């Protein structure tokens, strides 16, 4: 009997080999969601756009920020946060939502996790494209490409992957995880510099401590850098790297342990 570890490894490789299927399923998810709507996928961008505009005007006024600098900052933050929270919350649902397929066809489990990530990545790309165009029309530059940020972006993605895989496995077993995660994400939305900037509260010790141990701060900074081109400090990179290593290890162990049981839990 193959051991759990080799099964789990084979699962990951097989899922990557089936990238065609991942691609097709993810696209179909998106098409399905907006079929028969006139605006189609533009609805995603529109609803996020409404959030950005509302928050932007309100907090721009509260913080007395110039809208030309605050609005792009907020927009990029919200777009990437939408991606992060999408991967995390839908990631936890990746097996449960597909339980009827999983019980009929033997496909690698991690395929469903990749599919969730890929689906959210498509939406992120789409939203970013719309945002860049709108800001370009408003004559505000938000796109600052910097090739040096690619490693940190990839590291951020690796961190999201292990979180999604880990949550997918444990929420199949414990059904309380999903609501916990949903609440946690709500909390982290405020604890992560999305609507506020780090500079505004850098003297506050409490916030500094929160930032230091907030994994999403590092992940968001890493991901959004593909747009704003901000290279992370060595310490931040180190935190991101260590988190990726430990996280991958832990989630892989959870995956191995439960591998043969997942189908029974669904």
């Amino acid at each position, binding site marked *: 009997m193959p051991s759990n570890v080799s099964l789990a490894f084979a699962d990951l490789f097989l899922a990557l080999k089936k990238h*065609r299927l991942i691609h097709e*399923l993810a696209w*179909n998810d998106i098409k399905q969601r907006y*079929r028969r709507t006139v605006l189609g996928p533009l609805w995603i961008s529109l609803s996020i756009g409404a959030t950005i505009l509302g928050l932007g005007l309100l907090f721009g006024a509260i913080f007395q920020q110039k809208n030309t600098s605050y609005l792009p900052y907020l927009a990029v933050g919200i777009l990437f946060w939408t991606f992060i929270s999408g991967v995390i919350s839908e990631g936890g649902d990746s097996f449960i939502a597909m339980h009827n397929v999983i019980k009929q*066809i033997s496909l690698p489990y991690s395929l469903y996790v990749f599919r969730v990530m890929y689906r959210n990545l498509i939406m992120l790309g789409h939203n970013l494209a719309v945002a860049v165009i709108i800001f370009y029309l408003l004559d505000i530059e938000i796109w600052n490409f910097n090739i040096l940020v690619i490693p940190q972006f990839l590291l951020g993605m690796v961190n999201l992957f292990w979180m999604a895989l880990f949550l997918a496995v444990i929420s199949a077993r*414990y059904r309380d995880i999903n609501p916990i995660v949903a609440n946690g994400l709500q909390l982290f939305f405020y604890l992560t510099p999305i609507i506020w900037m780090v500079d505004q509260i850098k003297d506050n010790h409490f916030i500094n401590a929160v930032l230091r141990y907030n994994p999403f701060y590092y992940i968001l900074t890493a991901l959004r850098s593909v747009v704003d081109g901000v290279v992370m400090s060595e310490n931040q990179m180190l935190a991101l790297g260590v988190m990726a290593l430990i996280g991958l290890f832990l989630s892989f162990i959870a995956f191995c342990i439960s591998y043969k049981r997942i189908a*029974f839990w669904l």
Partner: protein
Amino acid sequence: MAKIILKNMSVSFPIFSWHGRSIKHEIISYAVGGMIGSQQNRPTSVDALSNINLEINNGDRVAIIGHNGSGKTTLLRTISKIYYPTLGEIEVYGKVHSLIDIMLGVDYESTGRENIYLRGLLMGLSKKEIASYEEEIIDFSELDEFINLPMRMYSSGMAMRLAFAIAAVVESDILLMDEWLSVGDQDFRSKAQEKLKKMISRSKILVIATHDTALVDSICNRVICLEHGRINSI
């Protein structure tokens, strides 16, 4: 060569009580140190299959018979590597094609043509292979222009016809079926029967769970009777 070997294989399902699935309860029962009720709330299990020894070889047409809940579908799912045995071993050599649920993964908002690709990819075909079968599938399902309409416009018979036509193009060594498939109206049914028989004759092994004794006599050369998860007679 196709072969299925089951050695002392058991499959049991964990049952989670309402408590057993929640973290709150795990934490509380941890905190109270197994004093109150933690014992009876541990996940118990149902043995769906116990101690199965079986070897299925090339050319075998195996019928699995038994009451509801005797483990027929579980056995099929174990052979298709969805369930892993709790105890014992299973070895499967050859490509498995499952016809347990041919409507699986059908997206009713997508057109018939899109569903050909979706289903095809799910069943492990490459995009190129699907393209080469596309016309054959549309021809066989007799859907004509309907193929470009969303599947929610189809009658249930039409949807079944398309799903069957897609499932029928897959080449495999081992064919798994849960009850004999009968699809569509009178004319289509006989055509589908022909196709299904051809599929069976092409495949090296057939395992079918059924209640139909006439069917067993006509196509199967081995009968396995399951009772409460055990093989009763062969």
